[in-house]
C-alpha cells in the first residue's frame, strides 16, 4: 500500500529550500515558487515565533519537511523522541511526502554532525529496512530517501551505491529524492559514470529532485550550496526529467545568498525543463 501510493503522488512543480533571509522575497514572488521545502529540524521544538512562521508558510505554500537527524541508517535504531517530533510536524502540515537522507548521523552515542555513508552491504540494507518499518508505523506520509555526498569510500562494499539505493527503496516502498548535484559530485570524486548510477535505479521511484551549485575544495567537489547551478547539473537534470516521472524539484542555496532574482531565474529554467519533459503544466 505504501509503495502503491508513490505512483499517486501529485506533481508539485519547482520550489525553493526555505531559508529565513528570503522570507519577505518568498511572499513577494509567490507566483514564481510552487512549493517550499523546510528543514524539519527547525520546527521540531519550535518557539512561538517559529510556530507562527510555520503557520504563515503553511497557509500560503505546500510545505515538504526535509529531516536532518533521523539517521535512518543507524544500526542502533531510530531515536524515538526525534521520530515522535517528526510525526507531530508531519501531522501538522500534512505534506504529500517528506524526506530524509540515506545515511547515518549518529552511532555509539556520538553525533557525527554530517550525513555519513553507509557500507553498501546486505547487513546495512536490513538496518535501513528495519528503521523504515518503524518510521512507517508512526508516520503515514510517504518517505523519500535522498542520496548523500560522501568523501569516504568504505572498503567493505558488497555492491554499488546505485544498487544499494535501488534495493532499499524496492524493499521499503520509499521513493527517491534524487539529489542530482550530489550524484554529480560523487561521480567526479569517486570516478564513476552518473548514467551508470541512474541505470541501476528504479526510475519510477524518483519523486523529487534537489539541485544546487558545486564548489571545489582541496581538489574535490563539495556540496556547499553556495553557487549558482552549473551546466553539468542542468544537463543531468534534463536527463533525469526525460526518464523519471519527477513530481517536484527543489533548488538549494544556503550560503553566499544572492538577490532573489538569481534564484527565481533558476526556478524558471527548471520549471521550463520539467514542462518540456511533460512532468507538469
Amino acid at each position: 500500500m505504501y509503495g502503491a501510493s508513490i505512483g499517486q503522488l501529485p506533481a508539485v512543480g519547482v520550489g525553493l529550500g526555505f531559508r529565513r533571509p528570503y522570507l519577505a522575497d518568498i511572499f513577494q514572488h509567490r507566483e514564481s515558487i510552487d512549493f517550499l521545502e523546510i528543514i524539519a529540524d527547525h520546527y521540531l521544538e519550535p518557539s512561538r515565533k517559529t510556530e507562527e512562521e510555520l503557520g504563515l508558510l503553511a497557509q500560503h505554500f505546500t510545505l515538504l519537511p526535509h529531516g536532518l537527524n533521523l539517521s535512518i541508517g543507524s544500526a542502533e535504531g531510530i531515536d524515538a523522541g526525534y521520530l515522535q517530533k517528526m510525526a507531530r510536524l508531519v501531522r501538522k502540515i500534512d505534506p504529500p511526502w517528506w524526506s530524509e537522507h540515506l545515511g547515518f548521523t549518529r552511532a555509539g552515542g556520538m553525533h557525527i554532525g554530517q550525513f555519513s555513508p553507509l557500507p553498501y552491504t546486505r547487513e546495512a540494507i536490513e538496518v535501513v529496512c528495519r528503521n523504515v518499518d518503524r518510521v512507517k508505523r508512526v508516520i503515514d506520509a510517504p518517505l523519500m530517501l535522498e542520496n548523500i555526498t560522501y568523501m569516504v569510500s568504505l572498503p567493505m562494499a558488497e555492491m554499488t551505491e546505485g544498487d544499494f539505493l535501488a534495493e532499499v527503496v524496492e524493499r521499503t516502498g520509499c521513493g527517491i529524492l534524487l539529489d542530482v548535484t550530489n550524484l554529480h559530485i560523487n561521480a567526479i570524486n569517486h570516478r564513476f559514470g552518473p548514467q551508470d548510477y541512474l541505470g541501476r535505479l528504479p526510475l519510477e521511484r524518483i519523486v523529487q529532485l534537489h539541485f544546487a551549485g558545486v564548489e571545489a575544495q582541496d581538489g574535490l567537489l563539495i556540496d556547499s550550496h553556495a553557487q549558482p547551478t552549473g551546466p553539468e547539473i542542468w544537463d543531468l537534470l534534463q536527463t533525469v526529467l526525460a526518464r523519471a516521472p519527477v513530481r517536484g524539484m527543489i533548488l538549494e542555496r544556503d550560503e553566499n545568498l544572492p538577490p532573489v532574482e538569481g534564484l527565481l531565474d533558476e526556478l524558471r529554467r527548471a520549471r521550463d525543463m520539467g514542462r518540456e519533459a511533460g512532468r507538469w503544466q
Partner: protein
Amino acid sequence: MAIERTQAFLACLYTDGYFRRCFFSDPQAVGKTFGMSEDEVRGLADLSARQVNFFARSLQRKRLRAVQKLLPLTSVALGEGFSRLFFQYLDNGAAGGINKHYQDAICFGTFLRQLARTDEVDPDWSVDLAGYEAAEVEMSSPSRHWKFCRSRYTVDALSEGLASGTLPPHTRALVLSLWWRLRSGERVRRLSVALPRVIGKTGVGDDPVEGGPVLGVGGAEIRRELRLPSK
C-alpha cells in the same frame, strides 16, 4: 552486530582527531580496543586516510561556520583567531547531540574563559563577549527560563560598537546580566547591571569613568549613568 560496531568506530574516527591519528598509525591496536576482529580491522585499514581527514576537516569547518553565525560579534572580535581557537576547542573534545551547534557555541564560550587564564585569547574582552553571546544562545531555547552571566567588561558597549563596525569603547567593570522568561516560549527579557570599578583608561578616546550602576534592559533600553563629583 558488526555494522553497529563499525558505525560506532567510524563515528569516532570522523570526530576524534586523536583517535584518528592513533588508528592510522596502528590500525590493529586501535581496532582491538574497539572489540573488532582482525578481519574487520584489516577491512577498515583500507580506508583512505586522505578521505577520512578531508571528511573530518569538513565536519569541523561546518561546525565552525555554524558557531560563527551564533557568536557573530565574537567572531569579528577575534578575527582569524576565532577559527584557530575553535579548532583547538574541537581537538579537546567537543559537544554532541542534535543541537550540537548551539552546544558548541555555549561550550566554546566556556573554553575561551578557561584559555583566558593563560592569556591565549586576544583581545581579552572577547572572552566576556563570547560568554555574553553564548548566554543569548542558551536563552534562545524556548524551554530555558533564566540565565545569569558575569562579565569583566561593559559587554553592551562592546556589542553595540562591534555591531556598528567600530572599535568599541569599553570599560572594565563587573557587569551582571540576567536573562529571563516567565513561561516557555515567551520573549526573553534582560537586565544588565554594571558595578562601578575603575582600572584605568580603556578603549579609544575614553577618559576614566567612575560611575554608578548602569542599567541595560532588554527591549526598551534604560541607561542611567551616575557620575560622582570630581575630587
